[in-house]
């Protein structure tokens, strides 16, 4: 990577937040820098800091404007960024069972046809990749993934569905998603996982974190009921595996 980093930008978000932007692209190197800054800012324990929100390419920092020294923060970040160690953030790899097609993946056949593939070939491509968790956002546990095989990138639906079930495994453009819960969606649903990326009261309440990796394991529909029951009882069902 000989490309120079794009210039760091501080985007005003009112009086109680700022977004520190590293770039405008979906790029693992940019995302790694976001996560490294996230860790560094939280380690600093700045007075007035409320919370940080890492996303694909930027870190939103929320603070109490009565206490937080914004100028000092901006200077601190400018000083921190050149020395950020992106390899310091160690991710985990999750193996996530997915039942593809049929009632679980209502768009599998149409999406395969669109790319001139059989459904089995599309499953191979989707389940054959190692994905990076770029961001958990939108709604609880929504896990946004990069690493989709570009040959199956699919523009979002023109007419979003008013509701899709929790656990949908879908693709939209070059992104892939594990939906944390039922939500309207314009993405193409290839399958469904019983895994709850978020479950209040479970320890841990959230499974995936930015910087983690995800691989999908095609799973026979006959196993759905047992896995679903285990997940509902608070078992992770997703497995941590060696990268």
């Amino acid at each position, binding site marked *: 990577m000989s490309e120079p980093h794009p210039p760091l930008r501080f*985007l*005003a*978000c*009112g*009086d*109680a*937040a700022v*977004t520190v*932007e590293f770039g*405008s*692209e*979906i790029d693992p190197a940019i995302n790694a820098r976001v996560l490294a800054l*996230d860790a560094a800012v939280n380690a600093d324990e700045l007075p007035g800091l*409320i*919370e*940080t*929100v*890492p*996303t*694909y*390419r*930027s*870190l*939103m920092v*929320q603070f*109490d*404007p*009565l206490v937080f020294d*914004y100028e000092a923060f901006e200077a601190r970040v400018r000083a921190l960024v050149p020395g950020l160690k992106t390899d310091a953030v160690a991710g985990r790899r999750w193996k996530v069972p997915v039942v593809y097609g049929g009632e679980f993946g209502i768009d599998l056949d149409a999406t395969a046809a669109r790319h001139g593939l059989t459904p089995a070939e599309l499953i191979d491509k989707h389940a054959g990749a190692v994905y990076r968790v770029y*961001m*958990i*956002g*939108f*709604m*609880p*546990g*929504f896990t*946004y993934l990069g690493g989709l095989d570009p040959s199956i990138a699919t523009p979002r639906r023109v007419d979003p569905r008013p509701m899709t079930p929790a656990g949908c495994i879908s693709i939209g453009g070059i992104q892939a998603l594990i939906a*944390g*819960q039922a939500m309207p969606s314009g993405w193409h649903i290839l399958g469904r996982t019983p895994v709850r990326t*978020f479950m*209040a*009261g479970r320890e841990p*309440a*959230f499974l995936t*974190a*930015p910087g983690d990796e995800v691989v999908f394991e095609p799973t026979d529909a006959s196993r759905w009921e047992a896995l679903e029951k285990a997940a509902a009882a608070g078992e992770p069902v997703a497995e941590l595996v060696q990268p």
Partner: protein
Amino acid sequence: MTELVVASAGPLTALQDAGRFGWQRYGVGPSGAMDRLALALANVLAGNPPGAVAIELALAGARLVVEGGAARVALAGATATLKIDGRPAPPLTSVTVQPGQTVEVGAAAEGIYTYLAVAGSFALAPTLGSLSLHHRTAIGGIDGRPLRAGDRLPLNLAEPNGPDLMLSTVPKPDRGPIRVVLGPQDDYFSQTGLETFLSSTYTISEQADRMGMRLSGPKIEHGPKGYNIVSDGIPSGAIQVPGNGQPLILLADRQTTGGYPKIATVISWDLPRLAQSRPGTALRFQRVDRAEAVRIARATDEAFRTLIASIRPAGLSGLASGDLLSLNLVDGVVDAKE
């Protein structure tokens, strides 16, 4: 054990506190009171820390019966009446309610959100550190839902201690334009679009709730970069402008991230009065820079502390109480981590 038992409640009656912080990185928004100043006022009048959990009512009223022991209640926020067994209680004053008596909050005459705080607050288990309800995702509240008839809310205090309290100054409403700081994506709008936004009147549409309010008015023109961004974090008060050019202000129950450019952000001290504005209200926006927004925050906080400091024991109007002033009523009024 002293309990408040819900006899009747409007559909949007729910527990809210200062908010749920630290989970936006997992997609869980802060929620919390739409009008955090009214929440703080009701709580302090009840003798609680400002960010304690209280009952948020939206437009409709509610009736609750006190059981097991006495309870001190206080109401603040939208203009609504408080009656105890049918007898009106004075406004901005906490009142001790005996077991068996009924607390009745009337429908809001002006504004939207009213807060009923109870001394000692509720002895209920929080979710992810807060009792604030996020209804769409069923997080917080009672079983992830609003309050309904039959719910029993146990209190942390068997009996209230200390005197009932009253506010001796009436807060002055601010009716000026809603102040905004441009950004984070003001560079996604043409000069014409920015001028339209800052010089036009926008009306709050019927599509307004705890998640956000859609406005209608002159179309805001995007620039050559279009109207899709790679999703980033959404601050409270962010004004998103999708392809139709109509602004959407994102509030307490907002999604944590989004892919539409945000032209500006409402300053934090104008969010409570914005939240209290009903559909049909005409809004204008006034641009301030970040430093000016912080000055406004400091000045408004100071004014709010002065207001809180005017709280006296009820029935002793005009008398400053050294005991009360030493109660440390003010600390943490705006501490979001409360």
